[in-house]
């Protein structure tokens, strides 16, 4: 081992790196929030009586869950413009991650909805509640409690997927680090720091999620 560490590049750029991490987090929050809303709508379609709706949701989930996120990002950013759909890189990535996460969230929410005993919903019907009221006041709160732990796992995993945005030069942490390595060649220092920053961020997310879980469960 005769590698001599030199952390000057980190000292100079740590502020920008943290900022870039924050940008990734922001993209993740927006994408996952949108993905959760879409996922929830899909989950309600999946547990509905309509067979066509069920099949459509299944097809959507199969496609988006089984294609690597990198490929989806390429299709959205490089492929879609050829048929006239052009989005700049940040919106393109956020939309892709939102759809990708919605496929995972749909599965989580659907499992949560299916785990609610039928009798509890019947009890809601028996006191004359409408379908919508039952959904909002009974199904959603019970389901969220059930799925909170597995939702947390996906949130962390999806946040890490923002590093994929570097492949279409979105200015988040991984892309910044890539640029810094080509400028300074301090490969090890930069990627170690980058990795550490992701770990700290994910740890903090997990910590906050656990607090939320404790409050609700």
């Amino acid at each position, binding site marked *: 081992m005769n590698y001599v560490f030199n952390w000057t590049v980190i000292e100079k750029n740590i502020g920008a790196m943290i900022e870039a991490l924050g940008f990734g987090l922001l993209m993740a929050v927006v994408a996952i929030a949108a993905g959760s809303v879409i996922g929830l709508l899909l989950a309600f379609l999946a547990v509905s009586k309509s067979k066509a709706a069920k099949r459509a949701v299944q097809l959507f989930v199969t496609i988006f869950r089984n294609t690597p996120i990198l490929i989806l990002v390429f299709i959205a950013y490089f492929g879609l413009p050829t048929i006239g759909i052009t989005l700049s890189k940040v919106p393109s990535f956020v939309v892709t991650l939102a759809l990708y996460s919605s496929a995972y969230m749909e599965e989580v929410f659907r499992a949560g909805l299916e785990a609610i005993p039928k009798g509890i919903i019947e*009890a809601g*019907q028996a*006191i*004359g509640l409408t379908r919508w009221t039952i959904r909002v006041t*009974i199904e959603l709160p*019970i389901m969220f409690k059930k799925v909170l732990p597995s939702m947390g796992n996906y949130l962390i995993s999806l946040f890490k997927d923002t590093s994929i945005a570097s492949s279409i030069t979105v200015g988040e942490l991984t892309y910044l680090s890539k640029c810094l390595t080509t400028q300074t060649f301090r490969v090890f220092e930069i990627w170690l720091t980058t990795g550490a920053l992701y770990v700290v961020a994910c740890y903090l997310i997990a910590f906050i999620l656990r607090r939320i879980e404790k409050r609700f469960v």
Partner: protein
Amino acid sequence: MSEALLKFENVSKSYGDFNVFTDISLEVHEKEVVSIIGSSGSGKTTLLRCINLLEPFQAGKIILDGQEIGYHEVNGKRKRVSEKEIAKQRAMTGMVFQQFNLFPHMTAKKNVMLGLTHTKKMPVAEAEKLAEKWLSAVGLQDKMDNLPGQLSGGQQQRVAIARAVAMSPKILLFDEATSALDPELVGEVLNVIRNLAKEGATMILVTHEMRFAYEVSDKVIFMDSGKIAAMGTPKEIFEERPTERLREFLATFNTGKAE
């Protein structure tokens, strides 16, 4: 006798080829307590669930308080009424389930309030008062802020009864309300039902508690393979035992005959 509060006119229910019950006609008058007995699979629970419109039925009419419920005729064809209408009609009946089915994420008080604030559109303060009144009536004044998971089975079922009664339904339906309870908790729930009967509530009980049915009912219906096999006063059903099938059925309960 006055017009019946609840009337079945030739009601039939089937799942595919399987007939759950066929051509049932019966009447329940105001303030009457009717018990339905019979072995499992005889169709008694399904019959109760039809009154609450939790089960569709294929033929006949159920008339509650002078109004046909669940179905209407459109151009001569029998059609189920809209979801909204069904929700309204359901609120006319109160249902108590075997498995209690409390909302697990709400306190006892909130369980009772939900239907009041959302179905009856009652102001929250008023709903809260009413919930407190009914929870006290079933002896749970100390448990109002507990979640269902913190209550015993008997207490949970009493919350469920308060939830049903608070809606001031025209008729109360009990679906084997004590079958899921530990034996020592059955009494407290039966006491609540007994008090409701005394106060003049109209009730239909699907039950295996023969002694209780004998004591509290005005009319007992014995169902056997989807038919009303016998119907009469508790005395006629439990003491005179008019049919062979009824005698066989009651023989399986050693408490069947009132001492």
